[in-house]
């Protein structure tokens, strides 16, 4: 199972500003001072070794994560996605770049919920315009289809939903009821978030990926906590809503529907999970800030680890691939 992150930002897509790019270049030049590069390859090699917040960026697309069970071979393929945030646009583009428009594909999409940042990529999802494609959108909200139709068409978008070329189907799932879709076992779980959200536990071939975003953890009921520990149990990777600091999440931003790095580590440790991807990054956080949070979270994991194997902690970024 390969997990590919196309969008990792919470609430609203962002982009680097000119000033932020300039600051990265200045830091890179400082790191390179005194060195000489014979060609672009030598310079690229040096750049690849720079700290991630200098040479890279966590990215700005809103939630979209791909689960790849088998590598596409050029023929028709079953693609699997979590959420259709703005990251769905580059994902759709990559499918067309690889296969062209003539190959019919199936897209299975699991929707955590219907907030704008999780559906906004669909109007610009190119495969939806191509006849022959089948897009099956799964979710636990009764208003699943309504939400997609409402954003597609006047007054918000020039193309009406009914003009989409692909066949689009909506499938309602029940929380706590496991289903098998495209060879993947899928278990939805209700989470705390305005309007409700659902996490998904995906299992295939002995590997487990948990997608749990837009989820607040109140920590006031041990039974509820135990429910999430079971949901994360022995997962190879948990993508976790770590938008706020723990203190914010239980004080000024209580009831805003999001969680923290600290709670992510604790739940993963209790569940014996192997990897934790911090996800749904706060849009006001720049790359340096997210890298600091990532380093602190690793330290937190280290000091709270009790007789347990190490939990691998990292901040997800647009373009990250994790092989389970």
């Amino acid at each position, binding site marked *: 199972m390969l997990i590919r992150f196309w969008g990792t930002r919470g609430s609203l897509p962002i982009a680097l500003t000119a000033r932020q790019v300039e600051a990265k270049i200045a830091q890179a030049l400082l790191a390179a001072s005194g060195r000489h590069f014979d060609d672009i390859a030598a310079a690229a090699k040096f750049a690849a070794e720079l700290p991630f917040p200098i040479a890279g960026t966590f990215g700005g697309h809103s939630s979209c994560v791909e689960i790849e069970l088998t590598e596409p071979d050029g023929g028709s393929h079953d693609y699997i996605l979590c959420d259709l945030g703005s990251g769905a646009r580059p994902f759709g583009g990559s499918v067309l770049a690889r296969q062209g428009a003539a190959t019919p594909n199936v897209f299975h999409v699991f929707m955590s919920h219907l907030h704008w940042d999780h559906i906004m990529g669909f109007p610009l999802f190119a495969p939806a315009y191509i006849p022959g494609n089948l897009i099956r959108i799964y979710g636990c909200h009764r208003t699943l289809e309504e939400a997609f139709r409402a954003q597609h068409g006047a007054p918000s978008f020039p193309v009406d939903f009914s003009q989409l070329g692909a066949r689009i189907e909506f499938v309602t799932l029940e929380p706590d009821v496991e289903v098998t879709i495209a060879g993947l076992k899928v278990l939805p779980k209700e989470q705390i978030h305005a309007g409700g959200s659902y996490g998904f536990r995906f299992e295939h071939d002995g590997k487990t990926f948990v997608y749990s975003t837009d989820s607040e953890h109140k*920590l*006031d009921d*041990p039974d509820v*906590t135990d429910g999430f520990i079971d949901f994360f149990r022995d997962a190879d990777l948990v993508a976790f809503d770590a938008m706020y*600091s*723990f*203190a*914010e999440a*239980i*004080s*000024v931003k209580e009831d805003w529907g999001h969680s*923290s*790095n*600290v*709670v992510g580590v*604790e739940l993963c440790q*209790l569940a014996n999970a192997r990897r934790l991807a911090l996800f749904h990054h706060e849009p006001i956080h720049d790359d340096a800030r997210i890298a600091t949070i990532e380093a*602190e*979270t690793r*330290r*937190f994991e280290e*000091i*709270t680890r009790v007789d347990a194997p190490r939990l691998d902690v990292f901040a997800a970024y647009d373009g990250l691939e994790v092989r389970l």
Partner: protein
Amino acid sequence: MSQPPMDLSPRRIGDVIVLGPVGRIDHLNADDFRAAVEPHLAHCEAGGASLLFDLSALEYISSSGLRVLMVAAKQSKPRGGRIAVAAPHPVVAEVLEISRFNLVFPVHATVADAVQALAAG
């Protein structure tokens, strides 16, 4: 199964009630911690006592335990009550910083510092 209530060894320094949790507080015993703190909250109000958590014997506190402190602060604040923590172990101090708890909750190096700060108002 009922457990003996958590002993916080309450003591009084002037107008400050000092509570001293011992060992580990995690999601399994956070509710016992909450129950042990609760009786003292009633005194924590304007013109009454302040509440100080002496963390010198606390080895570890999880998010559920920190939440008990936050809830206590939220309950007493509207009544003018004041709550602080003091003397965390280095590891607990790190937990307070990583969780940003130190930004919303007064953390003092020693009990004496905290008592003085609480007395100063």
